[in-house]
């Protein structure tokens, strides 16, 4: 924590000095820092508010029943539906997965959700199909979806005591 603060202080200091003396590489870093921070600020607060609401309103039994140890094939449907509508990327999917874990979702489902959230997001898929072609998108889905479920279940087997780290 303290080390991160020092690191961040050094980083901001470096950006400030770069700006002062018009050091080109430093200014390029400054620009990418601002634009990436901005893209996070646009999404992350909303994501955490929704996660907070999810925490207080959704019953543990509901998540456990659909995504927990006893969940059926339909669980995958829910996980993919949630993944497809997740905005942002891993930086939103990770806290969402942590929220699901707190409500009793099982490891395989968590990893399936994470992987699906990286590759099935709706706006992204529309861009892909438009600019690269629908055939390309279909191949990607058909090949990667079964593989990512397999890989996720393998993760659950490899880490039987897996727990998301974000604890109370």
């Amino acid at each position, binding site marked *: 924590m303290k080390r991160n603060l020092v690191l961040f202080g050094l980083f901001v200091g470096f950006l400030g000095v770069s700006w002062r003396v018009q050091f080109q590489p430093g200014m390029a870093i400054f620009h990418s820092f601002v634009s990436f921070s901005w893209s996070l600020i646009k999404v992350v607060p909303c994501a955490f*508010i929704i*996660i907070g609401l999810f925490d*207080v309103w959704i019953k543990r039994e509901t998540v456990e029943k659909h995504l927990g140890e006893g969940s059926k094939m339909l669980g995958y449907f829910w996980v993919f539906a949630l993944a497809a509508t997740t905005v942002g990327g891993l930086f939103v999917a990770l806290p969402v997965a942590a929220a699901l874990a707190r409500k009793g979702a099982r490891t395989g489902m968590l990893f399936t959700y994470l992987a699906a959230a990286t590759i099935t997001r709706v706006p992204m898929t529309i861009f892909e199909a*438009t600019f690269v072609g629908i055939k*390309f998108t279909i191949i990607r889905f058909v090949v990667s979806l079964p593989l990512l479920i397999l890989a996720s279940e393998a993760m659950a087997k490899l880490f039987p005591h897996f727990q998301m780290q974000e604890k109370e």
Partner: protein
Amino acid sequence: MIVLYIVTGILLVVSWKANATKTRKALKIAWKRFARILPAFGLMVMAVAIVLPLIPPEFIARSLGMNNRWLGMTVGSLLGSISMMPGFIAYPLSGILLSQGVPYMVISAFTTTLMMVGVLSFPLEKQYLGTRPALLRNLMSLLIALLVAVITGFAFGEIAL
């Protein structure tokens, strides 16, 4: 993006009308969780800020346009893994590259790793999943992406048995 604000707003209003105390608690939880993960977010932002200027889109475009498709696929998967780019930039860029004759399998390796493998977001991922699961998730994702790329190559007749 607008949809996200509308949905969040509606949920907040509905929740507030239903139970103000619970809603306050939800906001408190949201803030607590955010504050706890903020240092990891900070690390990720720094990593992205430093690395992205080193690999601008023009550089990626030049690197993917190599003659050898297997080499192109390998380079594509590496660049995709260490880069970070929103879909509305990555896919139009891919479209341009395709029109310049870059094979589909190279584009596939690049865009799929871009989405699935996150070297720059690793500090954040490690925080949530733990080091070993996070490493393994990325490794498996890289393998899946390469497999997708090879099969894409077959499907578009770019490689044959």
